[in-house]
C-alpha cells in the first residue's frame, strides 16, 4: 500500500527515497515543519494586514515615499534572492552526498544573510537618526514591525545555520543532519518569499500610492 509513483512515473519503494524521507520519523518532522510554515504565513499575513490598513495613517510623520529608498531595497532583494539560490544548491549538493560542497554553499548563505541583516539595520538606523522611529506614526509602527519581524526571522536563521555548520562538521551527512539541512532550506526559501512580498507591497507599493 505504501508504494507511490515518483521520478518519471515508475513505482518505487521507500528504499529509493532520499535518506531524509526514507526515515519515517525524519520525514514526519519535515511535514511538521511545513505546518510551522503554514502558521508563519498567517503571522506575516496579519502583519501585512496591519500594514495595509495603516499605510495612509501617517499623522505628522513622513510619507512612505519619504522613508523608502528603492536602491537599498533592491540590493537587499538581490542579496536574499542569491542566498535563496545558494541554499538551493547546498540542498542539491546534499542529495549528491558532497559534504564539503554543502558546507561551503551554506557558509555563503550565512554570509549573504549577514549582509542582508546589516544593510537592514543600517537602513533602520538612518530612519531613526532622521527622527522617524516607530513611535512617530501608526504607519511607521506597522512598517517597522513588518520589516523587523522578517529581519528577526533572518537573524534566527543565521543562528540556526551556524549551529547546523557545527553539527555537520561533527557528524557529517547523516539522516538527521540531512533532515535539519532540508528544513533549514525550507525556512530560508520561505523568508525569501516573504521578502518578495515585502519588496512588492512596501517598497514598490510605496511608489504607487
Amino acid at each position: 500500500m505504501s508504494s507511490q509513483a515518483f521520478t518519471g512515473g515508475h513505482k518505487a519503494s521507500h528504499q529509493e527515497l532520499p535518506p531524509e524521507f526514507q526515515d519515517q520519523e525524519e520525514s514526519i518532522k519535515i511535514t511538521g515543519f511545513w505546518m510551522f510554515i503554514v502558521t508563519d504565513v498567517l503571522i506575516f499575513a496579519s502583519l501585512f494586514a496591519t500594514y495595509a490598513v495603516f499605510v495612509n495613517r501617517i499623522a505628522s510623520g513622513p510619507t512612505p515615499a519619504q522613508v523608502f529608498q528603492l536602491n537599498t531595497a533592491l540590493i537587499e532583494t538581490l542579496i536574499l534572492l542569491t542566498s535563496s539560490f545558494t541554499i538551493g544548491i547546498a540542498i542539491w549538493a546534499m542529495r549528491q552526498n558532497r559534504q564539503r560542497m554543502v558546507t561551503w554553499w551554506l557558509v555563503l548563505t550565512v554570509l549573504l544573510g549577514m549582509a542582508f541583516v546589516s544593510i537592514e539595520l543600517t537602513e533602520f538606523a538612518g530612519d531613526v537618526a532622521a527622527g522617524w522611529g516607530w513611535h512617530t506614526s501608526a504607519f511607521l509602527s506597522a512598517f517597522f514591525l513588518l520589516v523587523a519581524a522578517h529581519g528577526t526571522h533572518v537573524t534566527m536563521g543565521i543562528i540556526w545555520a551556524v549551529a547546523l555548520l557545527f553539527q555537520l562538521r561533527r557528524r557529517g551527512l547523516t539522516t538527521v543532519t540531512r533532515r535539519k539541512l532540508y528544513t533549514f532550506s525550507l525556512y530560508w526559501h520561505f523568508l525569501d518569499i516573504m521578502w518578495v512580498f515585502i519588496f512588492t507591497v512596501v517598497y514598490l507599493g510605496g511608489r504607487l500610492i
Partner: protein
Amino acid sequence: MHGGDEQHETAIEPGFDFISPRFEEPKFPMHQVWGYAASLVLTFAALWMTVNRIMSPSVLLGVVLAMAVGQAALQLGVFMHVRESRGPAWHLVPLGLAFAIGIGLVGMSAWIMLFKSGVS
C-alpha cells in the same frame, strides 16, 4: 525509528492525485539556475514597471502583486521541492489554504477598515 516495523502510510485516496509525491535528483542543478534567473527577471521587471509607471497605479499594483505570487510559486516549486513527501504530500492542503486565507485576511481587513458607509 518509531518502533521500526510500522507502516503508517495510507494509500492516496481517489480524487487526491495532485498530492502524490515527486522527487528529482539531476546531475546538474539546472532547475535552480533557471529558477534564480527567473526570479531576477521578475524582480527587475516589476521594478522597471513601477519606476516608469507604465500603467495606472492601481492596475500596476495588481500586476506587481501577481508577479510576486509568481515568484512565490517559483520558490515553492523549484527550491522548496513542495511535492516531495513520504506518502501523500498532505501538507499541500493546509499550505494552499494558508495562502488563500492569508490573502483573504489582508484583502478583507482592508475592505472592512475602509469604513465606507460613515453611518453606524
